[in-house]
């Protein structure tokens, strides 16, 4: 078991490579994603302090990383080998129950993600994304079209087209670098499409 610091943007794991350990986020945040050979990327989830990642392959012999992981910001991670983790779970059953709960939460999240991508339109997914990520703080997060496309499971051209569609419908305003939400109830209706 060891503490592993990492810088923002640092690639921590590559999907498909042999698994060396499980990790827990102590500080900061990481993103979990998969890449297609075409270069498209799908964000699967974000891991924040207190949460683990790469658990399942670590607990399997000869497991491979399920996905790639990259630090979103400067972070500190707890790195633990599969055998050591398994020993801790056997010794402390409450730890096993907590990890089971985390896996259940991840399963819920991924099931919802599959439903969203498979059954909702890009425009509907974009409406949901804008509603969930609209900020009014001093330093809002900044997104490129590629960033948004990776969250939605599509490509940047489709995001651009969907943004123009929502703007033409009067639901948002595209004001240079600002996407401004104008009609939240209307976007809620769109997000169900």
């Amino acid at each position: 078991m060891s503490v592993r610091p990492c810088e923002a943007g640092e690639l921590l794991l590559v999907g498909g490579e042999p698994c060396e350990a499980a990790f827990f986020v102590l500080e900061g945040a990481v993103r979990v994603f998969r890449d297609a050979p075409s270069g498209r990327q799908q964000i699967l989830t974000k891991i924040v302090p207190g949460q683990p990642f790469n658990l399942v392959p670590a607990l399997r012999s000869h497991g491979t990383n399920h996905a790639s992981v990259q630090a979103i910001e400067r972070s500190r991670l707890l790195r633990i080998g599969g055998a050591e983790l398994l020993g801790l779970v056997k010794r402390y059953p409450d730890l096993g129950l907590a990890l089971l709960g985390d896996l259940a939460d991840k399963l819920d999240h991924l099931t919802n993600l599959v439903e969203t991508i498979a059954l909702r339109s890009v425009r509907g997914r974009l409406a949901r994304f804008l509603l969930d990520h609209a900020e009014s703080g001093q330093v809002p997060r900044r997104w490129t079209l590629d960033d948004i496309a990776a969250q939605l499971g599509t490509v940047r051209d489709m995001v651009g087209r969907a943004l123009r569609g929502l703007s033409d419908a009067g639901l948002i305003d595209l004001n240079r670098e600002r996407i401004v939400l104008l009609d939240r109830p209307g976007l809620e209706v769109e997000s169900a499409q």
Partner: protein
Amino acid sequence: MSSYALPAIDTSLCTLCGLCAAQCPGHAVEMTPTGPDIVRPSSCSYCAECEAVCPSHAIRCEFTIVDLSHD
């Protein structure tokens, strides 16, 4: 608006391919020996075409998402 956002350029990533300047519909971007420069900022419509064509992600057109629906 008295000021407006422009694409962010990281010249350390630029390979000097010139695609951004060639693709810019407003001719806002031109190539210099050290990389692209937005020489006509008033011609930039923030269309993000330069970002789309850049093979090394040296140009980024970033957006913030703001909720004014309650105002």
